[in-house]
Structures are given as C-alpha cells and as structure tokens.
C-alpha cells in the first residue's frame, strides 16, 4: 500500500469519526419547547407575553421554548381587567407540553 493511499485512509476514517458526528448535531431536532394557549371569555382580547404585545387576539396558541412566561390579557370586547398588570399570570411551559390559560372576568384559570 503506498503512503498516499494509507494517508487517505487515515484521513477518511478521521473524517468519519469527527466530522460526521458534528454534522449530525444539526440534524437532531433543535427545538425543545411546548405550546402556550391563551383563551378568554369573551374571545378577542389582546395578548401580551413577557411584555411583548402580539397582533393575535384570544383564543390563540403560541409555540414557545421551555421556560417561564408572564402572560397578560386585556381589553375589548369584554373589557377584561383582571388578567393584566398586577393580575398577570406567570406560567412554566415544559418541553412537549401545552399549557392553557383562560382569562375570565374574575381572572386567569390554568388548565
């Protein structure tokens, strides 16, 4: 076996051992989050999560990373006032799970 073929064989095996596993890292599912469903009675209230206001109105579902979220629901048509400000709800969403929060006139209910 000539030296160049030997070196090529070493190179290929090193490539298979080190480069391939690194490349496979990108193939694995990168997203490990859950879902946060925000409902209200009546529907059509505005939603804020972690201080960010969304265009989507209730009832809506959000795809989120695993972690803690501060949810606020307010406004028309029911003029809901017990789900925002001091009444905002902190929730924890785990990977693969769906957390549902329902805002009514009396405040949040979590399912």
């Amino acid at each position, binding site marked *: 076996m000539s030296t160049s073929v030997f*070196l090529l064989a070493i190179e290929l095996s090193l*490539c298979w051992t080190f480069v391939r596993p690194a490349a496979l890292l*990108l193939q694995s599912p*990168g997203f490990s*989050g859950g*879902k946060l469903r925000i409902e209200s009675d009546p529907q059509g209230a505005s939603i804020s999560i972690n201080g960010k206001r969304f265009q989507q109105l209730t009832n809506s579902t*959000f*795809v*989120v*990373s695993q972690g803690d979220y501060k949810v606020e629901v307010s406004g028309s048509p029911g003029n809901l006032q017990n789900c925002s400000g001091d009444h905002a709800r902190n929730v924890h969403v785990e990977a693969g799970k769906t957390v549902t929060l329902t805002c009514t006139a009396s405040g949040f209910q979590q399912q």
Partner: protein
Amino acid sequence: MSSKTSRAMIFRIVCYLSGILFILAVAQVQKQLGANLLEPQVSSLSAANQAQLDALYDLDNLVTTLATALLGGLGFFLVNGRKIRRWSAAMWLAVASAGCAALSLFLGYVLYLALLDMLKNEMFDPDMATIMWVRVAQFYSFLLAVVLFGDFAFQTLNAEDGREHKRVPAGD
C-alpha cells in the same frame, strides 16, 4: 517526511479542525437562538406567507446553485490555467474563495433545516433569529467567495499576461 509534505498535512488537519469547529459553532448558535422562541402558531399559510416562503426557498436555491458553479469555475481555472505556485497569494485566494463557497453551501443546508423545523412546529416567521442570521451569513459568504474568486482570476490572468509579454521578442 519532507517539510513540504508535513506542511500539506498540517494544512489538511487545520482545514478539518476548522470545519468541525465551524459546524459545532453553528449548531451551538442555532441552539442558543432557539432557546428564546416565542412565536404564534399558524395552522395554515396565507397566500402572502406562501409567497414569502417561496421567495426565501428560491433565494436559498439560487445561492446554492451559484456557489456550486463558482466552485466549478475555480476548479476549471486551477486545472486548465497556468500552474500556480504553491502557497502563493493566488493559491491562498483560491483556497479562501473555495472555503467561502463551501461555507455558503453548508449554510444553505442549515437554512433549509431551519425552514423545515419552523414549518414542522407550525410557526411562520422568516425573520426569526434562527433563520435570519443563516440567511445573511449564506449570502455574504457567497459574495465574499465571488470577490475572492474575482481577485484570484485577475491575479492569475495578470501573471499569464506578464509571461506572454516576456516571451514576445524585442522589436515585435
């Protein structure tokens, strides 16, 4: 082992190590950016969303095709052109251009994976962090590859012109 062979070996090892480190870095960046995800769920794409997705996909395809063509052009230059001295400036330009084009191809693949991941999770936001930086990096690494290729071609052609002039006898 001669110094030339060992130099070439070191160069190869550095190339492999850089490749591995780059792949690991990209995977880490994608993981970090994906850790702060907060997107509304969409059950179906609107016509405007579909058009945006098509445009993004077409651009990814176009840059990938052009990067492949650039690698082909570079190969053509290296095989058919005048022999380029090892470790010369032109050689480094060719290596850098090929590296950037390869980077662009790899990022095109990462972008494709990120798009699939987005659709699989029923989201639609082409400006989300995991997609945006790959989009920009893919295009600009391709652009850099083009600039380096242009410089390489210019240097090579200039060197050939110089050799042609030297061959022409005085008085002609």
